């Protein structure tokens, strides 16, 4: 069951300060409303994973790892490989994260990352098929939050995307009906590079890439995922507030511009 969360830990006086700054289009760390924090992307840092990447977005740190394994396709898509995304809010990342199975926030995060990748058809899943209806590659994308300072959706999707760009797929051979993976690898077939841009509505201002304190104050969150051709491929509203019709239109417009810059950055880092 989904329950209204408790009031955040940011002090009232600080919340009012953030609101006041937002009304003047300013932010606590000096950024403009449309500025991202500094982004660092380190791809391929876990050798045993098929693909991996760590994204540092300001003080937020997220590690995405991919394991490619042989498995069965879903019956309704016999010619396609399988993509699964899971997210863990590990307790080391923030004092509010507890042990236990993923809660609704972790599930929402994983599903929004999944939506970006799936709906833009980022992975060419048909080329993950080995034998239709029987054998395909399954891509397990696991997202580990290491340090939580807001905007986990963007950081996690960038990490997943960078990890996919670095992901290596084993070459295989058919030995008398049995599929055997060889020691050699080729890059994972990719079609698209979705980039989400997340906004926080603070007072009447929309800010991109909210830090944790801004998330504590925001009434509403909106994520807009844009694929490489500039189409919207995923959206998700979060938080307990509301949005004006024009705010949504403005967010889509900003996302289309911002996503282009961010995509270049991710592609460059994962080369």
């Amino acid at each position, binding site marked *: *069951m*989904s*329950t*209204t969360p*408790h*009031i955040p830990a940011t002090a009232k006086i600080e919340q009012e300060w953030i609101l006041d700054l937002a009304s003047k289009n300013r932010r606590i760390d000096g950024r403009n409303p449309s500025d991202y924090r500094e982004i660092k992307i380190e791809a391929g840092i876990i050798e045993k994973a098929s693909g991996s990447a760590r994204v540092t977005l300001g003080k937020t740190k997220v590690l995405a790892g991919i394991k490619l394994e042989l498995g069965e396709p879903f*019956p*309704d898509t016999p010619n396609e490989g399988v993509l699964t995304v899971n997210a863990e809010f590990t307790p080391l990342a923030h004092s509010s994260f507890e042990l236990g199975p993923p809660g*609704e926030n972790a*599930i*929402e995060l*994983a*599903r929004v990352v999944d*939506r970006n990748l*799936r*709906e*833009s058809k980022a992975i060419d899943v048909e080329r993950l098929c080995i034998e239709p209806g029987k054998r395909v590659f399954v891509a397990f994308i696991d997202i580990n939050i290491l340090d939580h300072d807001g905007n986990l959706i963007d950081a996690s999707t960038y990490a997943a995307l960078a990890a996919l760009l670095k992901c290596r797929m084993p070459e295989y051979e058919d030995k008398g009906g049995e599929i055997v993976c060889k020691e050699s690898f080729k890059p994972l077939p990719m079609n698209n590079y979705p980039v989400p841009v997340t906004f926080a509505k603070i007072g009447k201002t929309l800010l991109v890439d909210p830090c944790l304190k801004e998330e504590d104050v925001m009434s509403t969150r*909106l994520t807009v995922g844009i*694929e490489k051709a*500039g*189409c*919207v*491929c*995923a*959206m*998700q*509203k*979060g*938080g*307990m*507030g*509301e*949005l*004006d*019709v024009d705010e*949504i*239109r403005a967010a*889509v*417009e900003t996302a*289309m511009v911002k996503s282009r810059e961010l995509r270049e950055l991710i592609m460059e880092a994962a080369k």
Partner: protein
Amino acid sequence: MQKAPERLIDDNGLRLDGRRPEDLRPTELQVGVLENADGSAYIEQGKNKIIVGVYGPREIHPKHMVIPDRAAIRCRYRMAPFSTEERKNPAPSRREIEISKVIRESLEPAVMSEYYPRTVIDIFIEALQCDGGTRCAGIVAASLALADAGISMRELVSACSAGKVAGQIVTDLFDLEDKYGEADMPVALMPNLNKVTLIQMDGKLSREEFEKAFEMALEGCRKLRGLQTEALKRRYQQATTAEQPQQDSEEVK
């Protein structure tokens, strides 16, 4: 297993169920359908059949969940195992957990929770038969059930999806269109305040397509808002009219 339909839109521009692109499914709303719940509502929208019960404001357990200056809202969206083509495992799926969250967040701005500090308002949404767009139908019925429970609200929340099917922008997608179409975008709106309380999207829409779909979803919400008012009126005008049979007026809270 369902087969992919050959065509989703025919030569006359009609959809598989005979609708034009901007048409909603035939929708029937009923308020006050349960005996025990403080408020309840039922929606049939095409093949969708969803019942919602609301309890509260009532005491919250466990106590540490108390919010001192407002009511907590709890929401569960659940699909019955027999509601779909193939049996759905009764354990809560990740999809149901996410939908419970986004539905709660779509109703939070409407409920005047500050009137009921330290209590909880429980919303139980049971999807008995699912045919696409159940989160929207669930929101429409849930906001009626909240009103039926006598909970103060700023405005009713209406919800409707729009998307792209066989290259066309259409309103209120049903299951096959959702599965085999190109995009689906559920939107919830408080029509008289013109505030959006839910928006999600999956698929692929260009800037122009997004604009069109968004406008069509909002228009669908506005239409449903009319049906919601009628459903509430039906329930309470009937209950307050003198010539109505005795048993009906007893149900009035």
